[in-house]
């Protein structure tokens, strides 16, 4: 059992847990993920690591309720425990291995969409701790879905917040902000983009135009997370890759997003969509990129 030291609701349907998982905390790096099971009979859910503290032995995860399994998880409070918590899984972000001096001379732009803010945070934090200033775009549907603003502000160089409906920060999608920044004369060498697949697809279409190398973090369906089931396979260039062991981060210009999005829908008719339809009535209109509601 993995004890919960802190549980907090960050926004509508978005929850944060700080979990005691010393083995994972001692070795995890930005870009990696964990798999959790809330209870003895729960589904295995892959979640990107949002923060970690090696000394305290804790790992922080952020979850958006998209189906029955994530909904049930929200009953876990401080002092409760996750039944299973395994990781770190996948490969760390490439920059972790790079020479810091080289990183300081590379202009990074991080683009986070919605829940994607959570996995972008430890990467930006890592950069900050290594003396690398990076720019960050955080996009959300509307003001009350902007998460981790204060934390991000503390570690980012320039932070650009935007909402689709213009209720907070700049107005419009993250792609518009990136275009505007380029129009304002900004230039970048590497873009790291994490969010719903549909958003990552459109950011990649845009950065191709800018000839801007783009790394994305893929979140396909997974079961074991160790390379065993093959459910997470993706077409990247001419190759088939397993997101769990070869990724989760890939060259976004090589990922076949259309195929990945189709594969992601496989169970959604059964799980997320049906469940949310019943649970939320007509309040959920898709756009989370996970439930398939936008199709």
């Amino acid at each position, binding site marked *: 059992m993995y004890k919960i030291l802190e549980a907090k609701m960050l926004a509508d349907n978005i929850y944060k847990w700080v979990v005691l998982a010393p083995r994972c905390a001692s070795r995890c790096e930005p870009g990696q993920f964990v798999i959790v099971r809330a209870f003895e*009979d729960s589904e295995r859910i892959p979640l990107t690591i949002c923060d970690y503290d090696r000394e305290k032995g804790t790992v922080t995860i952020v979850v958006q309720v998209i189906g029955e399994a994530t909904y049930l998880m929200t009953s876990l409070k401080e002092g409760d425990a996750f039944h299973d918590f395994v990781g770190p899984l996948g490969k760390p972000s490439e920059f972790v291995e790079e020479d810091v001096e080289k990183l300081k001379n590379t202009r990074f732009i991080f683009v986070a969409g919605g829940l994607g803010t959570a996995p972008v945070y430890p990467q930006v934090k890592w950069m900050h701790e290594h003396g690398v200033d990076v720019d960050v775009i955080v996009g959300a549907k509307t003001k009350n879905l902007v998460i981790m603003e204060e934390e991000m502000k503390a570690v980012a160089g320039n932070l650009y917040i935007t909402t689709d409906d213009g209720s907070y920060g700049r107005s419009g999608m993250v792609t518009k902000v990136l275009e505007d920044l380029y129009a304002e004369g900004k230039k970048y060498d590497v873009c790291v983009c994490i969010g719903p697949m549909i958003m990552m697809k459109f950011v990649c279409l845009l950065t191709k135009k800018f000839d801007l190398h783009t790394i994305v973090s893929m979140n396909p369906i997974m079961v074991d997370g160790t390379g065993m089931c093959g459910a997470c396979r993706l077409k990247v260039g001419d190759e088939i890759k397993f997101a769990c062991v070869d990724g989760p981060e890939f060259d976004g210009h090589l990922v076949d997003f259309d195929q990945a999005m189709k594969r992601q*829908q496989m169970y959604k008719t059964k799980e997320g969509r049906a469940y949310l339809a019943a649970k939320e009535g007509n309040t959920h209109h898709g756009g989370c990129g996970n439930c398939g509601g936008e199709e």
Partner: protein
Amino acid sequence: MDVMKKVPIKEQEPKVRATNFEEVCLGYTKEEAMEEASRCLNCKNPLCVQGCPVSIHIPDFIKQVKEGDFEGAYHTITFSSSLPAVCGRVCPQETQCEGKCVRGIKGEAVSIGKLERFVADWAFENNVHPKENPNKNGKKVAVIGSGPSGLSCAGDLAKLGYEVTVFEALHELGGVLVYGIPEFRLPKERVVKKEIENVKALGVKFETNVIIGKSVTIEELMEKEHFDAVFIGSGAGLPKFMGIPGENLSGVFSANEYLTRSNLMKAFNPDSTTPIMIGKRTVVVGGGNVAMDAARTALRLGSETYIVYRRSEAELPARAEEVHHAKEEGIEFHLLTNPVEILEDENGWVKGIKCIKMELGEPDASGRRRPVEIPGSEYVIDCDVVIMALGTSPNPLISSTTEGLEINGRKCIIAREDGATTKEGVYAGGDAVTGAATVILAMGAGRAAAKGIDEYLNK
């Protein structure tokens, strides 16, 4: 009674069992077991023992069964095997012990597997367990993986007085016994869990949710956690695909995924939160035990099910009993047939599989006649689920994070007969070394490595 024939064993009717996940074979009663045991000739030079990868003293335990000393029989078996209830159910006895049985020359071999199963089940029912060795030698061994090779290695080392900790990547113990082999062939609560309880009774400790190479490395286990030796029994977990068009469509699964959803995550049970795709018509590609397991799972979930295999019936690598059961249950075999493409509907889902007929040519490296395509013989099987059961290869997670641990061209860890790898103090066995094989061969390798580790630590 006809002494040339096995005492028949009760099974669920094919039509009934095709709709449930209860075990197919119901096992012998005491009387039936004693009668079957009386068929054993108690050979002076028992060939059956040579056929057993863990060298169970077969005639001895059968004699005890004949005399009604089931507890004695259990201790005879568990002297050599840590998982008798499992082996009695899933070993390919026809090519091992029973294949060598002298009775089998003129009639049917003694039903050694079914007798082993009977003894193990009797021990469960009568609360007979193996005993912990009270004399600890103060040395620590880490075992990676709680599948057949790991359990067998851990069990043997514990009996020798070692302090053993088994690390498992998944949330559940048992490896392929829980994620791979279905309930109807190997009941999880009634058999696998109890076998693991018996390994625990020997004093072995278990830690789940630890991925060696990710959560902790082998070096750290040896240096920081002070394990004197390590056994790697991480299995062959990575599924193979064919590389044909359409393999990434929705509705195409590896057998690993399909079986893991059903077995480990209990998706066969409608109450499970883990979903599984139940097709109207399912095509399973492959001819091994895993292919049979996947097909019979799909059938039980309610799908019409076909097996497509590129060689002929004689080359089917699955246990004879599994093929027989699959056919009885109504699975249709398309033999000498190979898929060339998976066809897509307008939503990116599978709508059929295009196959080509094959004929057998000259023998290949495996000694089996190589299947060759018959030009122009393509045809389509309409289906909405395709399951690829083409075999698996070892996971590179451990080899890639352990300096000095060499692997061969097939990514298998290089190990000697006694399990020693190229890294000092590190032993390996089972599918991680051989590539995908059987439960009992993995157990044999785990046993050999336990002996190897014991010799190494007593040098």
